[in-house]
């Protein structure tokens, strides 16, 4: 509190004002979502205020019970597991590839790098059909394999490229220190690059979590059994364009599903912002 008053007095009030106003614009939809989750279905679209005329927890109860005895909690667990595996896969495979591209020399390196970038440029709607056929032949449809397996093979060029850029920002002189001690590429990877590229790894964690959590199309295609449903499939369950929609339940579950995302982000961003990064550069 004292610090806030301090900055106020020192004329940074304009910055503060902007930040607060901006902040409100950022979370306005969140406020709307949360308030709608406490309103009954018939009221949601009729009134514009944040305070529900009729406060109800029915949406949460109805939404949580899910369908046919499979609760939303089950969907959360499924998604947590899926996301955890995806994060591990991405970190390992993408960092290996990024290290190779950024620090090692080998034949055709630039060609492979270009190819990696190109794979990101093809819209997935056209590769999804042959990919589905492929996974179907392998009998992996209606499991999590099609969603998890690619993560262990650095299929998401976004993270490879991200890590490449971070690694390239690390001065080469530091490599010398490791080499002088007699370390080979493995040591370089494990002891120098990985720790220094921690911001990139954390970023990868955050984004993999959020994108996998929110991913819809692939999950919809590959998972058809209720017990395997993830959160995003569960949320879609409440809507049907041809009939009635359970808006309240959907908003309630959406609000709940934002919580893990928010928590993960807040938790990890502390490492991003409050600088584990600067540690080893001084040595």
């Amino acid at each position, binding site marked *: 509190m004292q610090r806030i008053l301090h900055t106020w007095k020192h004329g940074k009030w304009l910055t503060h004002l902007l930040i607060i106003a901006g902040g409100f614009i950022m979370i306005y939809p969140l406020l709307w979502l949360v308030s709608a989750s406490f309103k009954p279905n018939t009221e949601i679209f009729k009134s514009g205020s944040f305070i529900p005329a009729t406060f109800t927890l029915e949406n949460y109860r109805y939404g949580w019970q899910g369908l046919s005895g499979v609760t939303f909690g089950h969907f959360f667990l499924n998604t947590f597991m899926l996301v955890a595996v995806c994060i591990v896969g991405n970190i390992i495979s993408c960092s290996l590839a990024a290290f190779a591209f950024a620090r090692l020399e080998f034949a055709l390196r630039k060609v492979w790098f270009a190819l990696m970038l190109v794979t990101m440029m093809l819209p997935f709607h056209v590769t999804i059909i042959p990919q589905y056929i*492929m996974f179907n032949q392998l009998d992996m449809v209606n499991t999590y394999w099609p969603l998890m397996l690619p993560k262990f093979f650095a299929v998401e060029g976004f993270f490879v490229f991200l890590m490449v850029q971070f690694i390239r920002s690390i001065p080469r002189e530091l490599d010398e220190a490791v080499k002088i001690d007699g370390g080979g590429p493995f040591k370089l990877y494990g002891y120098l690059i990985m720790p220094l590229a921690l911001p990139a790894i954390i970023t990868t964690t955050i984004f993999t979590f959020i994108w996998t959590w929110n991913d819809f199309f692939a999950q919809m295609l590959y998972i058809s059994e209720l017990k395997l449903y993830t959160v995003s499939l569960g949320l879609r369950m409440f809507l049907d364009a041809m009939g009635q929609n359970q808006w309240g339940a959907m908003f309630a579950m959406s609000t709940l599903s934002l919580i893990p995302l928010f928590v993960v982000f807040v938790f990890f961003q502390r490492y991003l912002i409050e600088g584990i990064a600067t540690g080893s550069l001084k040595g």
Partner: protein
Amino acid sequence: MNPKLKNALKRNAVGYLFLSPWLLGLIGLSALPILASLYFSFTRYDMLTAPDWIGLENYRAMFGDQKWRNSMKVTLIYVFLGVPLQLIFALSVAMMLNRGIRGLRIYRAIYYVPSLFGGSVAVALLWRQLFGGEGLVNLLLRQIGLPGYNWIASPDTALYTLIVLKVWQFGAPMVIFLAALKQVPAELYEASRIDGAGRWKQFWRITLPLITPIVFFNVVMQTIQAFQAFTPAYIVSRGTGGPLDSTLFYTLYLYQKGFTHFQMGYAASMAWLLLIVIAFVTAMLFLSARRWVYYQE
């Protein structure tokens, strides 16, 4: 064996060892679908029966397709307007939040909240609420005496509401910028302050040059992703492409052609053409990088 050759082989072996997961993935998981889609682009393929070779027919038809030209136009506007705007915001906010002022930790999280929504139905609903004929935006405008307008449902403004949506969800590049800013060694700032450099000079001489690799990353990635943007247009226009195709993004049209009209061959040719366009733009960006991106290698 010749020691130089031995070394070269060893280097290559190590390189390929680290690269192997990716390479395996490329050959085992990605290559087949990618090549298959290329094949489809030369066929008429309705997904229910076998593909039928028709050569360059799809490509030729594309250039004569008015909707295709329109979707390309819509996408180009989205990319060249949306990406710079979003990145400027992202960098500005990242810099603001990087100041180290304690009380602002919550704000960092708050500024990321929009990006948590992703492409959810809730966002689409809200956007229509905000920008519709009787939405919040019009309400505010009328308060200050300006006339309202149906921003989200008028062909001349609908696309811009989607650009606003993109800018609003600047959290992802912002986080990446924050990570990059954190990598700039604090000693450099201290040293320059001793030399009497002000904040602006610090930004231009220290911060910006050192984060150019990440700026470059964000520019390239946001461009590639913006060209393929699908979800915002899909959820806000409910799959229609907006009033009079004004929000018919390229991949949305592609999706319609493939899944709704059962013309997967045409969709595939659209995809490959897009790939060429994106590859071209990316190559230009990479070429330009030599001028302004600074690696500490």
